[in-house]
């Protein structure tokens, strides 16, 4: 066997993939060739040292604790994100429900009543009567409805805030407000708006933000199970 042929077998020999016959042949060549003997010895010892040298300092003792704390932190961050999304989605959904409810039940009349509009007119009513001055009443009614709706939404938000301030969770506050709205709609009575905005706190009063401080702590449930 020539040195070139022997060198081509080094990898297979070191990986243990050489047939017995070729391994014997390589062994014979190794005995009589100092260069190949040296090369193989170098590779063998290098592999031995790489494989067996003492490990470096291991992981610190508190590694697992720190890692688990990070895992918990990641979980709680995901929960907070989800909760924030719910806080945004919740009021939006409530507002959408309110709009739909008003549109469905009152066809604009109830909303106008909320706004304290004296003359209730829809666009179709206004179209029936083209007498001078009636068109103004119709547009007045529509503007009033828009105003009433925005005020009602604001009122609802403040009701929710007030409930939260009294210690209720956001979910319960939203539930209670929506139930009140549904009860009111089922009764078919006009919304008691008093004078629009009269029962609202001053506009510069700090409204409680939808933070997660009072929300149920879901992360506690995600602990040891």
């Amino acid at each position, binding site marked *: 066997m020539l040195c070139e042929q022997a060198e081509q077998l080094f990898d297979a020999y070191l990986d243990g993939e050489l047939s017995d016959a070729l391994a014997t042949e390589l062994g014979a060549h190794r005995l009589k060739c100092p260069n190949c003997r040296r090369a193989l010895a170098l590779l063998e010892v290098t592999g031995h040292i790489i494989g067996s040298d003492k490990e*470096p300092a291991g992981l610190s003792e508190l590694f697992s604790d720190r890692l688990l704390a990070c895992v918990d932190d990641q979980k709680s961050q995901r929960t907070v994100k989800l909760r924030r999304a719910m806080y945004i989605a919740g009021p939006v959904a409530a507002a959408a429900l309110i709009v739909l409810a008003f549109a469905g039940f009152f066809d604009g009349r109830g909303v106008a009543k909320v706004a304290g509009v004296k003359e209730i007119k829809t666009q179709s009513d206004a179209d029936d009567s083209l007498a001078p001055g009636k068109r103004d009443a119709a547009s007045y009614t529509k503007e009033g409805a828009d105003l009433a709706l925005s005020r009602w939404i604001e009122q609802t938000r403040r009701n929710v805030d007030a409930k939260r301030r009294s210690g209720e969770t956001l979910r319960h506050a939203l539930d209670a407000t929506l139930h009140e709205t549904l009860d009111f709609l089922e009764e078919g009575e006009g919304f008691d708006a008093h004078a629009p905005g009269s029962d609202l706190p001053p506009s510069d009063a700090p409204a409680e933000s939808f933070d997660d401080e009072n929300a149920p702590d879901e992360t506690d449930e995600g602990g040891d199970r």
Partner: protein
Amino acid sequence: MLRQGISVTGTSSAISREQERELISRVRVGDRNAYRELVDQHGDRLHAFIWRMVRNHHDAEDICQDAFLKAFASIDSFKSQYRFSTWLFTIGYRVCLNQIRRKRAVSTDIDFNALPDANPSDNAIAAESEDAARVRSKIWEAVDRLTPPQRATVLLFYRQEFGCQEIARILQLPPATVKSHLHRARDRLRDLLDPMTERDWTCFRNLSERAG
């Protein structure tokens, strides 16, 4: 004469595949104790590999932590037909490569305090001759001069005792490329270590006899 190294696989072989699968299903439902068991099973082994790649204790621990966090965050995507260690090392290697690319100073950023020979309480190492220590040091310096994929292949093959198929999965390369990396790494190590002094070579021969 397959691999000259002794097993450094830590305790990962202490649990069966069945037990590992059970642990992973517990992790999937948020069982903290199962997390801890998996970390205890694979932490030191992963750390040893990463430390050899980056040669810095703090970086190695950070990479380990990052790898475990990524693994736990995507534990649902783990396929149970593979070993967890293969999957974990795949993640660890990717994080490691990113770190190496960021730092670009691997071989000059060696944490000498964490080098294995620095442990004075270890009598075996304290008793080791200076020549042997020098040869060991030369070998590791040569390993540090391999390219990251070659270094990873050599470490996974000799130190972690993975087969070429598993190394291919970890490095996300075809098995033939892994073989090629191993071949080129050996050639490079030969080139780097061949011009040793006669004194080094005598020591090398002694180590070789001890290894054989």
